[in-house]
């Protein structure tokens, strides 16, 4: 289990969100989540330009064993998706906090991310 990088925010359902310098939010799933799913074989990403409400199902990660919805941490519009995952979904297993990011959104409200779980609260929720 790799340590959770500082500064990330979380949903209880294991999505992480990181506020970037330009105000956008990068989203991925936690190391704990990839461990629960096992080897990922397919990632279905949202369409760029699409808007999601906070908590809405917006992507699917599938392992050999199960398909799992990914929920949008905060309301916003998708601006970029990690296209490299189409050919290498296992990147999410190997580097969930880095190269395994899923998509980037422009949040409707910049402050919305502050309401998510912080690292300590998320760590406690999976302990």
């Amino acid at each position, binding site marked *: 289990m790799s340590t959770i990088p500082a500064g990330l925010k979380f949903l209880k359902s294991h999505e992480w969100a990181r506020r970037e310098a330009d105000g956008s939010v990068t989203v991925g799933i936690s190391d704990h989540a990839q*461990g629960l799913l*096992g*080897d990922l*074989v*397919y990632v*279905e990403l949202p369409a760029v330009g699409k808007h999601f409400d906070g908590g809405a199902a917006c992507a*699917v990660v*599938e392992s*050999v*064993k199960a*398909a799992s919805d990914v929920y949008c941490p905060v309301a916003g519009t998708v601006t970029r998706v990690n296209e490299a995952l*189409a050919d290498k979904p*296992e990147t999410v*297993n190997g580097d969930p906090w880095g190269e395994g990011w899923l998509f980037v959104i422009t949040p409707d409200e910049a402050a919305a991310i502050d309401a998510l779980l912080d690292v300590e609260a998320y760590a406690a929720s999976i302990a």
Partner: protein
Amino acid sequence: MPAQTPLHANHLELGARMVDFGGWDMPLHYGSQIDEHHAVRRTAGMFDVSHMCVVDLAGGRCREFLRFLLANDVAKLKVSGKALYSCMLNAQGGVIDDLIVYFRDESHFRVVVNAATRDKDIAWIRRHAEAFAISVTVRSDLAMVAVQGPEARARVLALLPEADRERIGALGRFAAAESDGLFVARTGYTGEDGFEVIVPAGRVAAFWQDLLAAGVRPCGLGARDTLRLEAGMNLYGQDMDEETTPLEAGLAWTVAFDPADRDFIGRAALEAQRSGGVPRLLVGLLMDEKGVLRHGQVVLTSAGEGVVLSGTFSPTLGKAIGFARVPAAAAGDAGATVDIRGRQVPVRIVKPVFVREGKAQV
């Protein structure tokens, strides 16, 4: 509290992710189920299958009893050690379980049944054994390790007493023999060559460690599932159950209708279904688009709806595969579509064998 096999501590020590399977706490994988899958296709892997249930039958009328109990015909077993795969049916022709039966001698046969069905299986066997004066012994004192892959047999043979190696190495497919207290069967559930070894519970941890030292990779139930599905082998409870006949589950080849005068449980129902036309058949599905086939997804065919039974991602083929039960009229079609989260995804209908001995069959 789920049951534990005698190898439970070994799994934990290897860092396995454990999962409840049929009331047993079993390893799902030891890190990567896909790597474990490839190890079996390319070299050798081992599975703790001690949750499966070994039942020994004894009595002078053993063969007669099994010819009545099972849909396949143990009259085919002529040489000691030979094994046969069969379904055990209820009177309606529904599958109570699928199993392997080994012929030891005329008064001794051994049956290996599934973990999740063991209680009902044992009750059913005992219920019918009485009339044949057969004693039924559940061998909870035995454990079982499946060693599978192109190098599996060689790795196991090296652990046997030297004097036995040639004899065990010469075992044909679906045959078993004993060596040094081990019951070594050239059977499996992966589509690869290998052995399933029945070991006294007290010795299995040492046997496991010896295999580990010989470079055999521990594999969990996850890899076992993708391997058997690639190999076109059914999983009880998912591909067939008591509401399904073997004719509807791609298992017609395991039903011995000849000789016509052999009475077996379920025979009348199967004959009626055969003459009336089997309404649904099991087919293989192969999906070229990205995504994964899953149990329960609806299949839309030219003759109506069907359903995905077992579905998974095939690590060997790099695409989704599955079994589906579809209306018989559509079984010969080239393709169908599967509803995946509201999207109609095209699939090919194929013979339900995808990989054998490391080679793609589709």
